[in-house]
């Protein structure tokens, strides 16, 4: 793709075409859909973290008004319904496969976390279903629970699974242990940190929902669901859970109200509603209440890590060693095993030329909700540990925090750069991002701002984070060799209609990202047609040939590339048709701005003339070409993409209350080519809010018995408008070298880069009180206690 001239759409902040429906109440979310004769499902969930089910008595409930039926795990098992599959298999150091317990949609005899599915009541109305659920009598025999990773690996801890001794799912490692140990033995200085990456609850604003339908005449099932990847749900649910042929199963993910990872996974309710619709021959609808979202949407993060950096006498990094315990929860969610391994360990080089790295990760089962990918998935955990550790390196060596980073950066001319932990970065300019961010933030003016704060009795701190991440997932052969059970290509289909307008089908899914706009910009430029001539279709397995969906900042890098490839095929075929119509050699046809022209002449045909000829092939090279103008491309990326950047956070703390306020936040990111700057900035804003939320506000809390204490928005602190500042978001771009658009991805950078910038700022503000480390979130109570404790010394 050539650099875009100014009259092209790429690079323009085109207003979103999605907005009109959302702003007028005409969105079409799953819960907005109703089918004739629809029944309502209510899932009765475990109140216990760990218990045997001695008995379930549904007799009284079945007799209640409106109740159609009640199903338990035994009913599903009797129908041969399978468990929810895991999409990734990790092997331990010793070569043994991870422990992979079964995950039935409704448990049969034992519950393993609060919120585990125990029964489903199906009734004429939701109120009737809920009333009846209250009349179900369950006799639990409580078992001791293993809740935190630390408690779960302690000797004698209760076992979540009898098949997983020590509650270990796997014990994985990556890197050169011997080289790392040798470097540590020769080190001049060693910096050490103990890091807890706090557990988060995603909380997309639209609660999950599922509506199953069955057509007895055709034998076709339809599932409407809140998914980021309808084809993946069809594959997993059809092949492994309900065992339905794919051509008889349609999955529709209509407008979806945010995902952030939590709507990637195949959830039990999807299978329950689809299966029940088939049994009852009536549509069955389920919509989560927010408390159910807290209990059953896959959670994020939850790592406990010890890390050490070996340095020479000049603060150069010689080696990094990392030991992490990662909480999997009670079952393995779809992508869970990949998150603390191939999305984490492989990122530990960061933006630094550390020559030797060794990481070991123990994944642990606990009696908590499953943990899986949440915005950033593994890369925020890697970035947080590295960037906290680098600040600690600066502290113990006395080197300035920006200088120690510069001293260790991978240089802009060192790409492609092979890290010691498997990845090969294709492009980047970390120094350039840092310099741009320091200038944009007025880093040099910090001492004056700090003095102003101090005059007002406040503490001020500034923090840096220089990061790289790997996204645009992923080369199928590479991830296959690492344990993925699926390919991670993407599909684009471009249909040029007879009169020249264009419908594009993509296997990615938009749930806030604005694909309907951004992808139309790409296609408008690729085919030289107006944006109003292009529509983007996604989210329905009946329309889109196939697709792996949207996560891992892959939609444009992988899905957009597939669309470009399909457009290339359209242009190639159109050139042949143009050559015929213009009676010229195909080699002489040039394509520019939507016109197919005989080189050096003024003879030309517009795309619409060619498409008309293709669908009305009266004068057409019918012996050589099929009629029609529609092409499909499957695109498998050659490598991951590697966005990076610098985030700078400045905070002001009131030492009397412990309240921390972010006063300024600067993000300069390299996301590759920017198609729509307005949308890219919006994606970064949202990521920053989630990263700042993790650092200052959000924390999933279970008590020692496994009860979820943060089970509502009253208890779990979501970032509000008055918790956040205006952001400065800029770009310092290097292009991706291996995809046709040069794009890297922008969906997760905000959440990846920002938490350590915030915590480095908080710790900087508190350094006068002897604070050198603090776990997220830096709540007022935690900060106030640190100040009080510092005052005593």
């Amino acid at each position, binding site marked *: 793709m050539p650099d875009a001239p100014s009259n092209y759409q790429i690079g323009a902040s085109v207003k979103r075409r999605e907005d009109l429906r959302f*702003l007028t109440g005409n969105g079409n979310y799953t819960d907005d859909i109703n089918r004739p004769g629809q029944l309502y499902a209510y899932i009765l969930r475990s109140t216990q973290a760990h218990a045997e089910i001695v008995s379930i008595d549904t007799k009284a409930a079945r007799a209640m008004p409106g109740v159609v039926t009640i199903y338990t795990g035994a009913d599903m098992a009797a129908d041969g319904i399978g468990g929810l599959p895991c999409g990734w298999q990790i092997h331990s150091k010793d070569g043994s496969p991870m422990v992979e317990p079964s995950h039935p949609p409704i448990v049969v005899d034992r519950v393993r976390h609060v919120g585990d599915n125990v029964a489903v009541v199906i009734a004429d109305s939701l109120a009737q279903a809920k009333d009846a659920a209250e009349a179900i009598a369950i006799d639990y025999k409580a078992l001791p629970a293993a809740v935190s990773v630390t408690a779960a690996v302690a000797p004698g801890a209760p076992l979540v699974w009898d098949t997983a001794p020590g509650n270990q799912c796997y014990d994985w490692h990556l890197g050169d242990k011997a080289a790392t140990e040798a470097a540590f033995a020769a080190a001049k200085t060693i910096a050490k940190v103990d890091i807890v990456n706090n557990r988060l609850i995603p909380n997309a*604003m639209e609660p999950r929902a599922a509506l199953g339908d069955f057509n007895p005449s055709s034998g076709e099932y339809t599932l409407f669901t809140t998914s980021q990847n309808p084809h993946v749900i069809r594959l997993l649910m059809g092949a492994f859970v309900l065992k339905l042929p794919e051509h008889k199963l349609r999955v529709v993910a209509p407008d979806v109200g945010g995902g952030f990872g939590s709507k990637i996974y195949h959830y039990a309710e999807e299978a329950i509603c689809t299966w029940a619709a088939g049994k009852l021959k009536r549509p069955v609808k389920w919509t989560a209440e*927010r408390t159910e979202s807290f209990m059953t949407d896959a959670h994020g993060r939850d790592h406990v890590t010890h890390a050490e950096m070996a340095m020479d006498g000049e603060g150069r990094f010689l080696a990094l060693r990392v030991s992490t315990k990662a909480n999997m929860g009670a079952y393995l969610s779809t992508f869970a095993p990949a998150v603390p391994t191939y999305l984490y360990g492989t990122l530990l080089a960061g933006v630094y030329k550390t020559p030797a790295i060794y990481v070991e990760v123990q994944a642990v089962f606990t009696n908590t909700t499953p943990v899986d990918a949440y915005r950033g998935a593994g890369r925020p955990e890697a970035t947080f540990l590295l960037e906290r550790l680098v600040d600690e390196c600066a502290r113990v060596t006395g080197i300035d925090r920006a200088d120690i980073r510069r001293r260790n950066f991978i240089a802009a001319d060192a790409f492609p750069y092979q890290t010691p932990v498997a990845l090969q970065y294709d492009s980047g300019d970390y120094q350039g991002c840092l310099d741009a961010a320091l200038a944009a933030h007025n880093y040099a003016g910090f001492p004056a701002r700090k003095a102003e704060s101090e005059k007002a009795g406040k503490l001020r701190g500034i923090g840096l984070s220089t990061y790289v991440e790997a996204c645009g997932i992923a080369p199928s052969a590479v991830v296959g060799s690492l344990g993925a059970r699926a390919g991670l290509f993407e599909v684009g289909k471009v249909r040029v209609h007879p009169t020249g307008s264009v419908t594009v089908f993509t296997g990615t899914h938009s749930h806030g*990202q604005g694909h309907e706009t951004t992808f139309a910009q790409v296609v408008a430029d690729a085919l030289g047609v107006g944006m109003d001539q292009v529509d983007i279709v996604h989210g329905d397995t009946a329309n889109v040939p196939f697709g792996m969906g949207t996560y891992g900042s892959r939609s444009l890098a992988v899905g957009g590339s597939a669309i470009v490839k399909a457009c290339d095929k359209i242009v190639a075929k159109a050139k042949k048709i143009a050559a015929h119509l213009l009676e010229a050699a195909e080699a002489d046809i040039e394509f520019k701005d939507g016109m197919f022209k005989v080189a050096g002449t003024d003879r030309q045909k517009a795309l619409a003339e060619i498409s008309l000829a293709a669908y009305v092939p009266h004068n057409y090279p019918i012996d050589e070409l099929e009629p029609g103008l529609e092409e499909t491309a499957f695109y498998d990326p050659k490598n991951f993409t590697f966005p990076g950047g610098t985030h700078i956070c400045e905070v002001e703390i009131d030492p009397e209350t412990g309240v921390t306020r972010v006063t300024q936040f600067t993000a300069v990111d390299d996301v590759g080519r920017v198609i729509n700057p307005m*949308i890219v900035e919006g994606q970064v804003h949202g990521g920053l809010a989630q990263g700042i939320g993790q650092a200052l506000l959000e924390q999933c809390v279970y008590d020692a018995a496994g009860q979820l204490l943060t089970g509502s928005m009253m208890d779990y602190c979501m970032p509000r408008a*008055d918790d956040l500042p205006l952001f400065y978001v800029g770009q310092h771009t290097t292009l991706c070298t291996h995809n046709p658009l040069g794009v890297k991805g922008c969906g997760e950078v905000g959440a990846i880069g920002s938490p350590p910038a915030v915590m480095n700022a908080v710790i900087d503000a508190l350094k006068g009180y002897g604070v050198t480390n603090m776990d997220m979130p830096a709540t007022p109570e935690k900060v106030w206690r640190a100040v009080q404790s510092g005052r005593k010394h």
Partner: protein
Amino acid sequence: MQVSVSLTVNGKAVTAAVEPRTLLVQLLREHLELTGTHVGCDTSQCGACVVHVDGASAKSCTLLAVQCDGTSITTIEGLAKDGVLHPMQEAFREHHGLQCGFCTPGMVMSAVDLLQHNAKPSETEIREWLEGNICRCTGYHNIVKAVQHAAQQMGG
């Protein structure tokens, strides 16, 4: 038991038979098929369900339908007049104040009510007013910009 409620919704008189426990948002979404008003939580925190009751913003998940008997309700569907978007709707589009769109109806209805109280709010006043509307996508940056823009457009 069913009770009858009569009210005006987006300028149209409606009467519905509902259970006494029916919430206003259920009346709107399920009985009147006005699905633009959303439910994002169960504790009155998120504000996705904000509508106007007799001109003032209110969380429709926290009102019983029967409490609204005789009132006039405006939902997001009733904000645009004769196909012309309200300046607040225009401003959200202009400033990319929405992404997934789920919190948007409540956010817009709440912001419209803010300008009824304070025609020229400061950034801080906007952020404090919207404390009862949670957005997970935008980080609020562009929502604040949109509300400022709408205030300007509306002559505040």
